[in-house]
């Protein structure tokens, strides 16, 4: 069961993509924590940025802005926010200096021919301007430093981690790579396996990159994980096309767990599978979670599965998290209209219920009025966050209390 140690912390994550002459805000200011040992579900419709979030965490993209901390160390940082702040600071300082200059001019004119007054005014403003410039330099230096740090953390997070570990555990520690502790399972088991490599090569690739050269050890490891995911050692010599969909996904999982990761990002691992095989894969992930103490970030759009599998769930809509709560809480007290609409669309294997089920539609233009006040993430109950402005917050609170 999850303890309180935070394994992954995502702060103000923004991921923009260049698109023609504009930018696509795929992920826009997303914050969440994943605690050690828990399964964190991320749901939303296609194109809402849930996969992008996963890929940003595993550093497949260079993030635009924000910070990602893993095991307390920053592994990813974006520079956009600093750059913008930098611009802003420069601009305000310039404006201030300009106003000082005009004021000085005025005062000099007022003073007429009085030399003493002119000199005093000049001195006074020279001081002010100098101070402003000093402040600016300081701020610039701070921000530039931040940017350098961010770039360093972004690029050299593994080196930093290795140094830290060597200090703690001595120079011969093998635990030198922080990014391999996050692994990903992809949606499409056909597209994510190289058709020209045997299963052994696919699974062992990570080990080889890490520098393991002992063939016997590699074999041993490969057989071990194969058995762990419910395949047999004979499968190692085969090619991906010889397997069924469920077995391919098992290979994908084996590849992800061979480096003993602590966090697995499962990006719709069961959407491409048959219903009967879906259950096998979910049960496997559950088993592995218990055996290896894994933490899983589970990205999916099938809500019944997410509910079954996750401890906490975040609902995403157009690049923003709109609601986040423990899975029971979210399904019992959905507050955000988008969550409600999502929940009302779940098909259940019950014909009588299904024939009566009413789908709630969600239209952001009608549901919210954000003209006066922009929405932010607010905590409505312990662990239950919702994206709203203060007016809506009151409404939701009322709704919560009425139940």
């Amino acid at each position, binding site marked *: 069961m999850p303890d309180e140690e935070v394994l992954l912390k995502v702060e103000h994550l923004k991921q923009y993509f260049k698109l023609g002459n504009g930018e696509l805000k795929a992920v826009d200011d997303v914050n969440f924590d994943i605690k050690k040992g828990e399964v964190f579900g991320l749901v939303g*419709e*296609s*194109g809402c940025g849930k996969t992008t979030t996963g890929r940003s965490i595993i550093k497949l993209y260079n993030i635009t802005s924000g910070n990602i901390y893993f095991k307390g160390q920053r592994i990813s940082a974006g520079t956009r926010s600093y750059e913008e702040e930098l611009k802003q600071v420069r601009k305000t300082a310039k404006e201030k200096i300009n106003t000082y200059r005009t004021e000085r001019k005025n005062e000099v004119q007022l003073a007429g021919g009085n030399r003493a007054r002119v000199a005093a005014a000049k001195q006074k403003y020279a001081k002010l301007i100098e101070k402003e410039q000093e402040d600016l330099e300081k701020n610039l230096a701070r921000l530039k430093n931040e940017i350098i740090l961010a770039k360093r953390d972004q690029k050299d997070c593994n080196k930093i981690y290795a140094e830290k570990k060597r200090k703690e555990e001595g120079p011969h520690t093998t635990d030198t790579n922080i990014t391999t502790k996050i692994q990903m399972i992809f949606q499409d088991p056909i597209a994510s396996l190289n058709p020209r490599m045997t299963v052994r090569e696919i699974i062992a690739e990570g080990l080889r990159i890490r520098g393991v050269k002992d063939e016997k050890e590699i074999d041993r490891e490969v057989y071990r994980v194969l058995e762990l995911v419910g395949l047999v050692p004979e499968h190692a010599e085969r090619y991906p096309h010889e397997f*069924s*969909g*469920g*077995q391919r996904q098992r290979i994908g999982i084996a590849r992800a767990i061979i480096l003993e990761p602590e966090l697995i990002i499962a990006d719709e691992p069961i959407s491409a599978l*048959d*219903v*009967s*095989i*879906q*259950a*096998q894969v*979910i*049960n496997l992930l*559950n088993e592995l979670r218990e055996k290896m103490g894994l933490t899983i970030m589970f990205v999916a*759009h*099938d*809500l*019944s*599965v997410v*509910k*079954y*599998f996750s401890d906490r769930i975040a609902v995403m809509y157009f690049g923003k998290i709109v609601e986040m709560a423990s899975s029971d809480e979210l*399904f019992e007290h959905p507050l955000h209209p988008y969550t409600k*609409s*999502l929940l009302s*669309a*779940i*098909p*259940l*294997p*019950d*014909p*009588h*219920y*299904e*024939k*009566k*089920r009413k*789908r709630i539609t*969600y239209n952001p233009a009608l549901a919210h009025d954000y003209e006066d006040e922009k929405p932010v993430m607010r905590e409505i109950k312990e662990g239950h966050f919702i994206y709203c402005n203060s007016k809506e917050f009151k409404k939701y609170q009322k709704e919560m209390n009425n139940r």
Partner: protein
Amino acid sequence: MERKVDIKNLRISFRTNSGTVKAVRNINLELNKGETLAIVGESGSGKSVTARAMIGILAPNAIVESGEILYDGKDLLKISEEEFHEYRGNKISMIFQDPMSSLNPIMKIGKQLTEAMILNGKANQRSAKKELNVKMNQLKEAMIKALAVNGNEAQVKKEIENKIAIFKKFTAAGNELEKAYNTAFQAANEILTQMDILLSEIRKAEPEDVKEQLRDILEECENVYQPFVVADGTKMPELTKELKTALKVYTDSGKARAVIALLEQIQAILKEAVAKTAPNFFRMGYYVTYNKNADINGKDVEALNKEMRKYLDENFMLDFIEDAKAGIQYSFQKALNAKQSVVNRLEAAKPVFTTEKLDEKECRKTAKELIACVEESIDRLAIYKDSLAYTFKSSIESELDRYFKAIVNNAKEEKRFEQESKAVEKAVKAGKPTGTAIPPVIIDLELVKENILRIITRLQESYEQQMREALSVDFDALAVGMIDYLKDRASAMVHKVTKKMAKLKAIKLMEEVGIPQPRKRYNQYPFQFSGGMRQRIVIAIALAANPDILICDEPTTALDVTIQSQILELINRLKEERKLSVVFITHDLGVVANMADRIAVMYAGKIVEYGTVDDIFYQPAHPYTWALLSSMPDLDTKETLEAIPGTPPNMIYPPKGDAFAARNKYAMQIDFEEEPPLFEISDTHSAATWLLHPAAPKVEMPKVVKDRIERMKRLEVAADA
């Protein structure tokens, strides 16, 4: 309930390099009018193959080993590709899983929607003309034969021919009137939509090409004059005149107020016109052609309809129906008499096809005789075609062809395999790299013989049943049905689809499937649509030709939850509105609960459970259905999921006995030895599992499923209370 499609004993396999894959193994399905039949199973269970066989798009390496798919007097497995063009899209439509790959990326949506309509329009006109003439002649012949009594044949013939001529003449006249009405009605509709757009644009003060739009409207206004749309003597002509002057003012000064006022007045008139009920043009055709004092202008439609009906009935129709009834009765009786002898001959012919090795000459001869007498026994005048009799010829001939070809081919295949195996063996011994020998494709001769016998027995049984029911046939209803049919064909004959009409219909369709701003969307390309919208377009295209049957092959698997439920709702709504029969293929039982009336659960090419939606969800009986239900979590599931262990069997070597036995924890010894038959549980519900055999130990369904069903029932009781 009217039967639409009958799939009987269907067996399909695929020739591959590693052997023949038995994809569909002896399934029976039926589809009724206006219902949804869901086929559920995992990938490779043969559900898509079955559907593809229905629409004639099986892969080229498919072999149909046996079976029929009967639809409207035709066996869809035996008709030629040319003939299939008439069915595909027109009668049977399909929606595929991936919307993007079923749309043409470089063609505008509008073009893709109207293309089929325009092409089909012409074909429909042609076929309607042909069908009308054929039926008419058949009816004429039957009527003459029925009414002629000793010697007055010539006179009767003359009379009947005269009547038929009258019928043809006034239906033609009625159709002309209808055509004129349709043109005017469509024009009125078109103006109304154009005005809506224009008015909203003007009111929002962002008018674009107002002049051009107004000119279009004025032009279109010429076409609305028709006694039952916009009768003469209304204010319309004045208003259009004023609109012309107002247009000038607008072009000079940009003042729109007068234009708006005029448009609103015209709109009011047209709205009223469009809301009016149309008169019955069939009756009107007779009324205006044969009644010298006929005056239809300015009369109340209801009263006019009544008056026309009376006139038509008294002067012509009642008499004609009586004659038609006699003709139909005669034709029916004649066919019935023939059927008696056919039954006997079929019985007598059986031994020819049951000998150890069929004799080609004798078989062909007997088949030819049988076919001749079956053809004789078909009541050609009946509108509902007796599929079994109509397809008898093609079925029996193709089976015989298969049999005698197979005798030669099987030997060849075996020889080839032997040679290849030897070559491979040699190469292996020599240590050379080598492939494997491709296993022989052997056609099971016994199976073909069984097929032939089944074709004969089934026709025999069907004929026997028809003879038993012959006394209770309602000929009055049949005669009226015949008149309706002729009427319908005659009006289809003059129903021309123009580009403009197609566009109008396409826009209406787009609205129907829930695409906002259809006029703008009409001119866009597929890439400009989102996934859900694309699937809607695909559905609209599938419906463009007004099919009776819609096959949906996993239409929502590529979509996410909210879009999925929108699309499902859409398909459900369209089914209700258009009385469609839907075949819905999916692997997700949750999706099906909402959609299906009946469900067939398929596993390894066989139907393992078949029943109504309530049967399958509330009283599942097959372990595979249990496993499917228990392996998917719902919102209350907490315990470990009961996954189905293992994978589906390799269908090149289908397992002996029950195919699911290896993955089934309830499997008994017999499951590994013998295939279970389909045990009937109730009239609507059957399942193929030995557990239902009276001698089997009693087994409860898994606790998860049982709990869930109980929970669902409790919920329902709570909801009702």
